[in-house]
């Protein structure tokens, strides 16, 4: 590694989305042959920084950024992915950009095929009529695969290959680009098994030894410690630390990642604190098959009357828990309420048992966007619990029509109680603001009269003032109506603000349960898998 020369410098990068500052004066520098780890929680600004570096259109359609980018000491304007590629930046995507029906060679050379002229292409002066030069393409592909020490045959189709190989083919494609000086890996080990991940880290070292600078984005701290030369920690859009590897210890990194002042608010007191002796829900070995958020055998207990927080990094399965129990993704295991088993994989049965769910996907799952507020609030309770219906006409006892009066009255009451800002009960929810949509979702759950309420990412995508209101509402429900609340959130801060206990999920299992006032380092370590406690 040549410490003296800088192949990439990003200086004073600041980026705002619609008035929100997501990156504030972030700087980062890479030397040739260096492996530089960029760590941070979800939402710390890592992907925005990479989007800027890769010239993604989303940056430029939202007003661009300030700061400058230098490559080999020269200022460059990376206004498009093509420009970034030209400048020597390669990106290994998180999702595979591979065509299953093409061979490995064809995928490595996709849209960069070597071609040969022929009579027709010369006649029309058209490169698109050139023959593909398959032997040369194969030779190039072979060379790229060899650099990664991959012995697989380059003429095999990609379909049917183990996923581990696909990641390497993605890398081989970048390596094959002659001009690549900087390679960005965006959480490359997320889909790999442990042996595959080890092998990938080996490839990173080998590429770095060839003089390529590597920017390695991850939140697996053990991997950082294993390969990184230097480490930059981002938190809330700001650089909080730059460390050499020998200065870093896992505990310190974890603390830096999540550390944040928790504004303490005084929560209203209870008559009786929830305790281990009175359980609302027992979860035993829950497995949920939710793509991207797999739960792999999670067990825990929820106390009656508490607000339990569930935290963890994205992809570790915290969102899968509520979705699995509510029957939205196929699941197995045992969940019981008051000693009474709750049938899994059946949303209808779960709703009848007094459980309700406010989904993290408000617009996709939570709402009928083009339907009025009143229908959104009442339809679930109507379907699952036969509320808001009346028999009409009376000589047909089986026929039940919606009870407009009751629906209107209940919706009006909810609009008043939850302070939903709208033009009336018949306004379509699509035209409401995010915060008010979220309140409609909560009202929908309340119409079910739940004993236990799952709330996932309640403040995602809503503005600061509305966030507060939503959290206050949850506390009020808990204290005044004695609803047991299980709140899943990516924002550790808000979990620590209102929860009685915070459970941390790591790789689909319970890593441990912490009191909300536990230290940053404890939370950080647990989220990064630093310590593995057996499930409580």
């Amino acid at each position, binding site marked *: 590694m040549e410490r003296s020369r800088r192949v990439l410098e990003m200086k004073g990068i600041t980026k705002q989305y619609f008035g929100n500052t997501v990156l504030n004066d972030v700087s980062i520098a890479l030397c040739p042959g260096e492996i530089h780890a960029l760590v941070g929680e979800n939402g710390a600004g890592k992907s925005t920084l990479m989007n800027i570096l890769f010239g993604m259109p989303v940056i430029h359609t939202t007003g661009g950024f300030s700061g400058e980018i230098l490559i080999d000491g020269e200022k460059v304007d990376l206004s498009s992915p093509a420009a970034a590629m030209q400048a020597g930046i390669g990106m290994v995507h998180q999702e595979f950009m591979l065509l299953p029906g093409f061979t490995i060679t064809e995928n490595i050379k996709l849209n960069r095929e070597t071609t040969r002229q022929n009579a027709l292409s010369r006649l029309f002066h058209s490169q698109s009529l050139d023959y593909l030069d398959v032997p040369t393409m194969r030779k190039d592909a072979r060379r790229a695969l060899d650099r990664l020490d991959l012995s697989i045959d380059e003429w095999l189709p990609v379909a049917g290959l183990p996923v581990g190989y696909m990641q390497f083919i993605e890398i081989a494609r970048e390596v094959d680009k002659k001009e690549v000086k900087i390679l960005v890996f965006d959480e490359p080990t997320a889909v790999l098994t442990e042996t595959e991940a080890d092998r990938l880290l080996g490839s990173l070292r080998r590429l770095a030894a060839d003089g390529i600078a590597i920017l390695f984005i991850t939140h697996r701290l053990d991997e950082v410690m294993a390969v990184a030369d230097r480490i930059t920690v981002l938190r809330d859009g700001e650089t909080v630390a730059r460390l050499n590897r020998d200065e870093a210890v896992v505990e310190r990194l974890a603390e830096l990642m999540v550390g944040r002042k928790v504004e303490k608010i005084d929560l209203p007191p209870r008559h009786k604190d929830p305790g281990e002796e009175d359980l609302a829900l027992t979860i035993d070995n829950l497995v949920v098959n939710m793509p991207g958020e797999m739960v792999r055998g999670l067990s825990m207990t929820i106390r009656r009357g508490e607000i339990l927080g569930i935290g963890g990094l994205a992809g570790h399965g915290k969102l899968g828990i509520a979705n699995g129990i509510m029957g939205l993704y196929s699941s197995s295991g045992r969940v019981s309420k008051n000693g009474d088993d709750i049938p899994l994989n059946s949303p209808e049965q*779960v709703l009848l048992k007094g459980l309700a769910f406010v989904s993290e996907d408000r617009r996709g799952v939570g709402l009928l966007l*083009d*339907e009025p507020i009143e229908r959104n609030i009442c339809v679930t309770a109507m379907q699952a619990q036969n509320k808001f219906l009346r028999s009409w006409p009376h000589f047909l006892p089986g026929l039940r029509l919606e009870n407009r009066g009751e629906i209107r009255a209940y919706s009006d009451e909810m609009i008043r109680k939850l302070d939903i800002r709208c033009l009336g009960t018949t306004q379509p929810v699509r035209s409401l603001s995010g915060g008010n949509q979220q309140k409609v979702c909560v009202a929908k759950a309340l119409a079910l009269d739940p004993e236990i309420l799952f709330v996932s990412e309640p403040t995602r995508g809503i503005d600061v003032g509305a966030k507060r209101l939503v959290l206050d509402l949850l506390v009020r429900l808990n204290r005044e109506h004695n609803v047991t609340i299980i709140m899943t959130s990516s924002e550790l801060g808000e979990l620590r603000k209102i929860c009685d206990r915070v459970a941390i999920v790591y790789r689909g299992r319970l890593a441990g349960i912490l009191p909300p006032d536990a230290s940053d380092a404890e939370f950080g370590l647990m989220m990064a898998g630093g310590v593995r406690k057996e499930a409580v």
Partner: protein
Amino acid sequence: MTLRLRRIVENIGIPRLIIAGFLLIIFITAYITDMSVPQLMTDSLVRVGMNGILVLAMVPTISCGVGLNFGLPLGVLSGLVGALISMERNLKGFSGLFAAIGFAIPIAVVVGYLYAKLLESVKGQEMMVGTYVGFSTVAVMCVFWLLAPFKNPELIWAIGGKGLRFTLTLGNHFGKVLNEFAVFQLFGVKISAGLLGFFLLFCLLIYFFYKTKLGIAMLAAGANPVFARSAGIDVRSMKAVGVVLSTVLAAIGIIIYAQSYGFLQLYMAPLMMAFPAVAAILIGGASLQKATISNVIIGTLLFQTLLTTALPVTSRVIQGDISEVARLIISNGMILYALTRSTGGK
């Protein structure tokens, strides 16, 4: 002012404005060329009542999330079988009509259920699969008409041929029973309360259906399947209910169509039945995802009036029958418009 105008235009929709404009021109031309405008309106209203229920059959499939029902011929064929059974038994008048509907419904329920099962496994391609399942069933039924065990001499070829005739006269059975029921005149326009009333009755029934628990569940399943699942609604059975309902309406629709026309058309006649119905509901303002009863009524009125009046009026101005060409261009243009409009729909 211009903003308000633009909003009005957006609310009504450009296609409807164009067609309404067309109609206006046609009626003005008719008036100038001394044609009987009341007669044109009488004919148009008959066509509306004749086609209305077939158009109504599009509503359940759209609202349950399956999309436009290009498999309409399946329901039509069920209706034809029902009508044939009624005719074979020599039932006359209203009893013939209701017997035809009564025989057709159970057949349509079974056919619709099987069709729904098929559509379930081809999610995303329902329209195309529906079209060709409809087409191939029409072809299979052609063989059936040839071999079917009907004995009534009115139905089968008198001499020489084998099987059912191409076109059966309904006159003795239940031809025009609804059309000639409770007819009254208003400003010289003959209105058949029987025919139009029957159509509106069905509109009302479907309207109330969407106020029931089942109807609302179906709407939710169509609008957002994941939402519906999370509300404990079985999305698959809701789609099945929608498809069955549509098939039953198509079966009833063709019987009403036939009684109004006076003839029962077999063999390849049902082949393209879906397309005018699809066009009509789209003209009425429906999309691939959303359709209402008012879309049905407005669409049928505009489309059928246009088709009915275009021929007699234009033939005064232009030589040749332009109405067939206009039908092709307008109906398929409308379907194209709907198909290309909302790419983000699914």
